């Protein structure tokens, strides 16, 4: 079957930080700061991280996981309102195979004691978005079960 399967997903994560919005915005807009929380800490090696923070500018992250897979994020900044909002569009690839394309919105609100962050991702996952090894087992078991069920 050659039909391309696209699955869409939207999720929202809310956080609160005890610093003013400008400090949170700095962590989104300063390459040295963003690298630390975005690219690093996933148990992978950060092979490269480049960022040009302006509308139309790009950001690229390449991480190498322990299992040898290379994860690439290719980002374009779509909307920037200083101290308040960043909207980005990004593709995720595994070993040069594009597996998803998403829109992310960061919204910052001052709340007296600090900053509320609302993070929204709207994603399109393409066929094979589970990744070559990541959840192959889960899907093939489901399809095996389904195949048996339909045959009986």
């Amino acid at each position, binding site marked *: 079957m050659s039909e391309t399967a696209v699955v869409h997903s939207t999720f929202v994560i809310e*956080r609160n*930080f005890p610093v003013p919005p400008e400090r949170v915005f700095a*962590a989104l807009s300063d390459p040295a700061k963003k690298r630390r929380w975005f690219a690093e*800490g996933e148990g992978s090696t950060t092979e490269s991280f480049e960022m040009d923070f302006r509308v139309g500018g790009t950001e690229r992250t390449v991480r190498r996981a322990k299992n040898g897979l290379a994860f690439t994020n290719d980002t374009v900044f779509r909307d920037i309102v200083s101290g308040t909002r960043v909207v980005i569009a990004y593709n995720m690839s595994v070993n040069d195979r594009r597996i998803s394309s998403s829109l992310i919105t960061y919204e910052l609100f001052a709340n007296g004691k600090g900053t509320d962050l609302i993070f929204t991702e709207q994603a399109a996952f393409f066929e094979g978005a589970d990744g070559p090894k990541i959840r192959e087992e889960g899907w093939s078991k*489901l*399809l095996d079960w389904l195949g048996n*069920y339909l045959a009986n």
Partner: protein
Amino acid sequence: MLTQRAAVDRVFHALGDPTRRAIVEKLSEGPVSVSSLAQPLDITLAAVVQHLQILEASGLVQTEKVGRVRTCHIEPKGLSVAERWINERRTLWERRLDRLGKLLAEDADEK
């Protein structure tokens, strides 16, 4: 044979209905005969059968006839596929935002 997308769509369609969610919740306590599902939910047997068809097609539930009684039970693989698919990206971002929080807390302390 269902595509991956169709399989996930069916799970979400199945869970999108409150009566079907109630059926799944009931079945998570243990297998139940089809005929005994109707009364607690206050719906007809025909309606139960229709809901079960959707749940079976989605892979969340399986029914089988033992003697003259048809019983249904949860099929664990169906739920875990949906959960894992939703959780994958979300948890990646949860970890990133956790690290952002730590970074900002460190910066706040330095001042």
